[in-house]
């Protein structure tokens, strides 16, 4: 009975859907959700500021030039909190399409949310940039509107493997990943690449997402006595727990590789984090893009290395801007085509493209903790000089 009341209450939340004024648009609206509550907030919540920083930056230089309208248009981000919940995500992307009338979608975090969000792009034919979704299953259903900048999950660690095969001195690997769609995929790929590169994977296990005590896993790993221990994409907090107990239980590998180790992990290990290898979506360099990325993070209020995904976001913004500029119009089909045909060089050396499925080329770079800060192990030649083995010292 009172459904009606609620219906009206909600309907009241919607601005009167006046038909969009024809002719030249006033601005470019880019819409998406960023989890500011729920389990994912720890990883992505700060990126709301990053988006705003990018918006200011682009508009400061007059917006994005649009041939079709003979002028540059300012951009505007519309961002909601999806509560890390697919149902909420679904309705918010619908809102973005129908109420906020976005020109381009920028995706949420995680595959589960992407799957829900993508529906809006199909039903409303709006170009969808999957900023952080690179799991194969997202590309099962036909949808010409979606594209990601990232390489497929199972290729994520390509650069790490390249580095390790140059490094030498390591033979056996133990890999632990959290039981979660993306991280399992990524770990699987790493294991394959490692064995192709001639290494030996002596232990591979997935830990339940809510594991609070790793002592038993550490013990099992210890029995295999591997040269290198890889904690693959085992995001905080799980890896903090694992590492603390590895130290306690006396698991002392020659090389320790924690693929996702932002500040909390380094703090949690204290001095013991010295010489821990990790991955970042950025590397030291002095190209204009490096500088811009630095400044962008500053504006967002954190150091570039504090959130490894910040680099992914930066690339996404650059790809979207590039696509819009080449399209030169807000016509959805044109923007879509432009997105698929990206061919952009970033950081002086990165060739950004897309394959036929919609996967991109972005991959993280190896880094290592020296005195509580990350130093880049890239390019490889430089990295080999900088790199130190952990040699079981915590």
């Amino acid at each position, binding site marked *: *009975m*009172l*459904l*009606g*009341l*609620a*219906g*009206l*209450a*909600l*309907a009241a*939340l*919607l601005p009167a*859907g006046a038909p969009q004024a024809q002719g030249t648009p006033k601005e470019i609206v880019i819409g998406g959700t960023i989890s*500011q*509550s729920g*389990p994912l907030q720890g990883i992505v919540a700060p990126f709301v500021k990053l988006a705003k920083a990018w918006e200011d930056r682009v508009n400061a230089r007059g917006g994005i030039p649009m041939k079709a309208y003979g002028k540059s248009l300012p951009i505007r981000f519309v961002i*909601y*909190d999806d*509560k890390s*919940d*697919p*149902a*909420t995500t*679904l*309705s918010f992307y*619908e*809102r973005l*399409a*129908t*109420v906020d009338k976005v020109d381009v979608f920028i995706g949420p975090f995680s595959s*589960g949310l992407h*799957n*829900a969000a993508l*529906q809006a792009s*199909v*039903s*409303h034919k709006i170009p969808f940039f999957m900023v952080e979704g690179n799991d194969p*299953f997202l590309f*099962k*259903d036909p949808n010409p509107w979606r594209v990601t900048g990232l390489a497929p999950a199972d290729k994520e660690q390509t650069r790490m493997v390249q580095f390790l095969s140059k490094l030498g001195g390591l033979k056996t690997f133990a890999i632990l990943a959290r*039981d*979660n*769609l993306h991280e*399992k995929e990524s770990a699987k790929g790493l294991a394959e690449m490692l064995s192709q590169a001639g290494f030996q994977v002596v232990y591979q296990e997935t830990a*339940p*997402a809510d594991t609070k005590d790793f002592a038993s896993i550490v013990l099992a790993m210890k029995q295999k006595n591997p040269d290198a221990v890889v904690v693959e994409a085992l995001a905080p907090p799980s890896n903090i727990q694992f590492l603390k107990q590895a130290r306690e239980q006396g698991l002392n590998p020659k090389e320790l590789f924690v693929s996702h180790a932002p500040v909390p992990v380094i703090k949690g290990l204290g001095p013991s984090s010295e010489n821990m290898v990790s991955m970042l979506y950025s590397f030291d360099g002095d190209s204009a893009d490096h500088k811009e990325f630095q400044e962008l993070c500053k504006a967002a209020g954190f150091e570039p290395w504090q959130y490894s995904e910040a680099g992914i976001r930066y690339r996404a913004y650059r790809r979207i801007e590039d696509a819009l500029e080449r399209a030169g119009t807000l016509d959805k089909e044109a923007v879509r085509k432009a997105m698929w045909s990206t061919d952009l060089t970033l950081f002086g050396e990165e060739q950004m493209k897309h394959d036929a499925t919609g996967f991109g080329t972005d991959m993280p770079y190896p880094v290592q903790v020296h005195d509580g800060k990350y130093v880049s192990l890239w390019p490889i030649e430089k990295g080999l000089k900088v790199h130190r083995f952990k040699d079981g010292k915590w």
Partner: protein
Amino acid sequence: MRRSVPVLALGLGGVLVAGLLALPWLPLAGGGYAVKVLTLLLIYVVLAQSYDIVGGTMGYVNLGHIAFFGLGAYACGIAFNAGLALPGALAAGMAVVMAFAALISYPFFRLRGAYFSLAAFGLVKLMENVTINLRWLTGGSNGLKVAAADRTLPMYYLTLGLAAATILAGWLVNRSRLGLAMKSIREDEAVARDFGVPTLRIKTQALVLSACFPALMGGLYMWYFNFIEPAQVYGLKIALQPVAMALLGGSGLVVGPVLGAALLYALEEFIWTHVEHLQGAILGLVVVLVGLFMPGGVARLAPVQRLLERIGLREDDR
């Protein structure tokens, strides 16, 4: 006092009726977003209303109600992937859940009060973990996927229908012989037993009945989103939401859960679209205040009671 409200009452009554009549036509008005939002709201109506059969009428605070939703979603999804059509898959899911409910009712209803609530709450986590670990069947942490399609409209109407059915069921139960037995159990289980009420049988019937609606809802949810993960359908927050809604609206009254779902959801939607930060905290504050000052829920507040009386929705929960 009664004299002072008729205008307002009639007015609001009219609005309610209008809103109710408007529901089926809403999609034609083309509010894509409104349809999606209302679908979610209706999902909560189904969950809160069916929770209240056991939680409100019988007085067993079942913190594990969502387990039926999750199990229904998975059972239906698996059946759907096995090639059954939606009706068949839904039926299969419902059968599984009802069997499950009947099965657990024996051990769980040996527990009283807080103990029962606790064990039921624990059940949710147990279900989640088991679902994750039975990879071969459920896809584990990879989640369960069914063929995608735009099912917005059918989902909306099916959910609307199911919500109506759930409300009707609640209404019938509260008036039925079974309902009276459930109320007597709520008031004093031992005495009810002394006066011939076969308490265990009644409790089992109540649980199974309250389980079939979330089961169907879960099935539809799975079919609509075409992808679910264990944490999504067995989450602790989702588990508590219907309980909070029922209590906010007025547990034990049929209008209660509906009212509660509508209010809490509208509030949530408003906060999340208009407030920058601390949305969860605001929501929490509201929940606390309700628990403190409205033990009977909104529907039992005197003015609301008068209002309901005017529009003929006042119920007798004596």
